[in-house]
């Protein structure tokens, strides 16, 4: 194998690794999502440095043409990443749903409190809005 392509591969993989670390350092990427990317970058780096590994892997899996092994590994990695994202999207969907429900319920509660306050200033039942405010306060704790 031409060593020039190996140098390019090592540089590219190192670049990816450093970029991911930099994103984490700048808090643009949460550690929990960075881990998968770090793993991918490390695998690429190992394959670039260790020239024989890809051929050996191909041999083990009975793949005649070594670059195909690379495609296989890359494709499998991408699939796992995508699945990971679908899982986190599902989790976020649930969390956002709960937040939206809470916001809606609190808004309704707030409007009740405001209505009662307005009624009180007009000479309504004075204890009522305080009771409602008290229960709202309990909810915030």
């Amino acid at each position, binding site marked *: 194998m031409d060593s020039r392509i190996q140098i390019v591969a090592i540089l590219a993989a190192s670049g990816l690794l450093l970029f991911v670390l930099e994103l984490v350092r700048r808090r643009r990427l949460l550690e929990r999502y960075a881990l998968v990317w770090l793993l991918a970058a490390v695998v690429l780096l190992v394959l670039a440095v260790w020239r024989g590994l890809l051929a050996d892997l191909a041999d083990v899996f009975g793949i005649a043409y070594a670059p195909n092994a690379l495609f296989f590994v890359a494709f499998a990695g991408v699939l796992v990443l995508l699945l990971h994202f679908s899982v986190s999207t599902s989790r976020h969907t649930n969390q956002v*749903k709960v937040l*939206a*429900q809470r*916001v*809606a*319920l609190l*808004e*309704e509660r707030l409007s*009740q409190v405001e209505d009662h306050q307005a009624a009180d200033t007009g000479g309504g039942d004075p204890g009522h809005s305080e009771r409602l405010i008290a229960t709202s306060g309990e*909810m915030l704790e």
Partner: protein
Amino acid sequence: MRFPKHSTRRYLAVVPAYNEQATVGEVVAALRRHAPEFDVLVVDDGSTDRTGEIARAAGARVVRLPYNLGIGSTVQAGFVFAQENGYDYMAQVDGDGQHDPRELRKLIAAMDADPEIDMVCGSRFLTDDHSYPAPVSRRTGIHIFAFILSRIVDQRVSDPTSGFRLYNRRGIGVFARDYPHDYPEVEAVLMLHWHRLKMIEVPVKMHTRSAGVSSISSGKSAYYMIKVLLAIFVGLARRRPEPDPGEPAGVIAGAGI
């Protein structure tokens, strides 16, 4: 017709509504007229029309979701409301006018008849009158769900997609915590079964929708069929939820000594 008076019990009718401005006012008015012991809560699922305003003007309390969350999450907001406000019973009544508030009396009677019952479901298919007008495709879907569900829960379920339901506190508690997303009625029957809560069906009459379009268009029904079937069969493989304190004892062994 008057309901039997239980002064200590509190009833909530939850009306999920998405762009139902043509019907929601009449639904709220009918509930207040024919089922006066129910407090009425309209959960407006991010409507783009005047659904929320009309419901409030008609005398309902209105929880307005900030954007369209889908029917399951809308009804779940109602369960959470019922739980946090200490209601003993919660009914779900659709905002499109297909459920008749006068029929709530039958649901309450069935609930009162047996303290073991946690959910009463109004069924279109238990009457001799087979006039419920629905497209053949949808009826077929309903009957397929009914067949599968009846086998799984070991009880005849004739109308698993009916949203005309009454829940007691146990039912409210279970579904406030976790309620299925789309087309939730079918899965909710399964969840009750897993929590070892009891349901019963009573025959009711339903109207055709007086306006608007069903949330389930015929083009989407196949998609929903597949999705709900997936949910049912994946659900079978899911770890059974632990029964809560107060729920009937299950066969799940707790952590040993």
